């Protein structure tokens, strides 16, 4: 049972780490807009710009 004297302080360290990570995320706007980023995955990595040909292809291929 002596192992708990190592494991429990370890869990406390993890706890502080988790709280620190969440606070960092809150501070860096990670929770401000939860809707738009969710839609970004629908946007496939087609080249930005004016390539009409490429656009056509991906329209037919994916949609």
């Amino acid at each position, binding site marked *: *049972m002596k192992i*708990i*004297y190592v494991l*429990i302080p370890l*869990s*406390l360290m993890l*706890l502080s780490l*988790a*709280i620190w990570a*969440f*606070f960092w995320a*809150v*501070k860096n706007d990670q*929770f*401000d*807009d939860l*809707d*738009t980023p969710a*839609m970004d995955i*629908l*946007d496939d990595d087609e080249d*930005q*710009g*004016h*390539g*009409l040909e*490429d*656009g056509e292809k*991906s*329209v037919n291929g994916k*949609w």
Partner: protein
Amino acid sequence: MRESCFHCGEPVPTGTDLAVEIDGRPRAMCCAGCRAVAQLIHSSGLGRYYEFRDALPERPESGVDAGRFAAWDRDAVLDHHAPADERGCRSVVLVLENVHCAACAWLVQRYLGSFPGVGQCRLDISDGRLKLGFDPQCTLLSTLASALARLGYPPHLDTPDSALARDRNERRRMLKYLIVAALGMMQVMSYALAKYIGAGEMDPETEHFFRLVSMLVAVPVALYAGQPFYRSAAAHLAQRHLGLDVPVAIAILLALFSSVAITLFGSGDVYFDSVVMFIFFLLLGRFAVLLARQDAGTAHSALTRALPAQARRLTDEGSEMVGLVELTGEDRVLVADGEVVPADGVVLEGVGRVDESLLSGESEPRLRSPGDAVLAGSLVVGGSLTVQVTGLGRDTVISGIVDLLGEARRKRPRLAKLADRAAGIFIAAILLATTLAALWWWQHDPARVIPIVLAMLVVACPCALALGTPTALASASRALARAGVLASNPDALEALPRITHVMIDKTGTLTEPGMHVAEVRPHESLDHERIMALAGALERVSRHPIARAFEAHDRGLEVQRPGSEAGNGVYGEIEGQRWFLGRPEWVEQQIGQPHEAIGEGIWLMLGRPGLQPAWIRVDAAVRRGAGDLIAQLHGAGIEVVLASGDRPDNVAAMARRLGIRQHHAGLKPEDKLALARRLRAKGARVAMIGDGINDAPVLAGADISIALAEGAAIARTQADLVSTGRSLEPLQNLFAQAPRVRRIIRQNLIWALTYNLGALPLAAMGLVPPWAAAIGMSASSLAVVLNARRLGRIPGTAAVAAPKPAAALKRSPA
């Protein structure tokens, strides 16, 4: 069925032929603006927008003046709105109009991303805020702004809004409390679990160690994450009032410190796990309420867009466009026809009519001459004025109005106030009952005093009672705002189902504000297309409302020596021939051709000497959804009264068309108000639907006022409920939703009372352990919040908002 516009989905006016070939097939467009946008989107390779979108865009403005955003490139404007980083790149927040769905975000981000020097570009679809990083060396802000306007998303510079920043800070603070409570709860419960599982075998030394560790986690977590409750309880006690959070704070602190005392000095049960869990679940409920309340408010941020970001400052040499932030109290500005006055001031030169409905609700434009005061946010509708600035920014009248409206949003609903008062009495009773129970148990079994007191305080917490109404109203407001109805007075939602009469205005309410071409009568030598091209060209010079009906039909024919005659019509030479368009009697005189009688309505005659004239009928279009709304109201047993200032025959025709039985014509605003009062005196509960500007006094006289408004006019309306956009469909939703709102509020209140009154005696008898009380209380609050959230979904809106079936239909070969 008429064809609908490929871009915006509005019906294509008869006689419009603006088809564009996209994907190898001609697509019908309703106006030149839509055509331009569709071509722009397509030629940028962004055609997938049409498959992506789940809401139809607004009709774009037809022309974007390139100079409109010129002042945005000035250093002072950039420094104020767009801070630069060390490499010279700037980041700015723009508020875009007409943002509906993920496809808008996709389109805007993609399109702006194709400009050189544009870095970060994120559009938040919930409030239309675009965070944009750009390099002024590569692309000017004005270029990006006019690109957005051409795309159909007119941008506005975001003025740093203190309310918005406050909302965000509040949200973040709550989120931090919630996270700490959640992580702390998991940790403390895992320590407690060890004891519950290995109950018998744990040696006292290990058990003490676990308690110490639990204490080490629970005390800081409870002290940090419980702050909202301690603060609120302290504030309530300072006002000598028993608030909701008083028993909550007592329970938390009592449980916490008794457990600390037991851990350090004595023996018995500790409640660290229950305390942290209690805090977490309470915070969860509070967070849900906070989000619902704030979301309901974001729609109001449109108010701040009423003022322009630039002004034309007069200098000794002439005039220059400057940013609003550069203006000082000594400046003189020139405000041209159709522009918004940027600051409060006094007219120095010029005479013009000024529309101050934004500020006073007075719809008729007032004449302003030198010496008169003008207010920021009013619109110059005739003439141009030189204005000496007297008040700027926060000192303007409009700024005060915006603040007032912000206050209205924060005020507690009537039922919630009632519940607050009831909760005060309820809490006093709980504290008394708890004290009595504690005394009784002290006599009989002192060891059980603390757990029983805790259980009673926690289980009786009237959170659900206090949350029931505000969450339901906030949730409904939010859903309705998405569907196009802003509830500036949420009480109205609760009162709406009791309405017996709906008074509705005709012009601008049942009908669209503008005119459109309803019918054209061509003949052999003058075909439809030619008529519209000629009319479009001739009406170019006119500022009359009828002329707007022809804007979309202008094909750019050249007109020599054009002119207009007030009240009669317009004329000009086209391809060497002199044409007249206007009132039949007048045109007849001009071209020397007698006209035959023609049916009722507003008919215009188009002709030139020596040719048989052609006829055009213009009319105000009935708003989409008008018929359905009237039918729905009749179906719900509500009497509809059409009250209009228009001529009796027009009103009767409209009433007949829509199936309205009661109609009154020729009413002045005071007559309408008297009518509303008469109905109310007879015991009726009256809702008035109007355009919010002409009807302002009548709206104020009704039990519930509902206004229709678009764009900047949203800010001008003082109604309880404001429906945005062009159709009446949002109002159908509103009337369908209102009974549900009332039902859910009632369910919440009944449930909360039953739970509290039922559980308290059980806790007093010692049948409820503290942890079960914490779960019970939280579950009851969550049940209320989740029940309220059901109002966040409006059945049927999916069908209204999703154009996909229609788009698919158009795509399939006909």
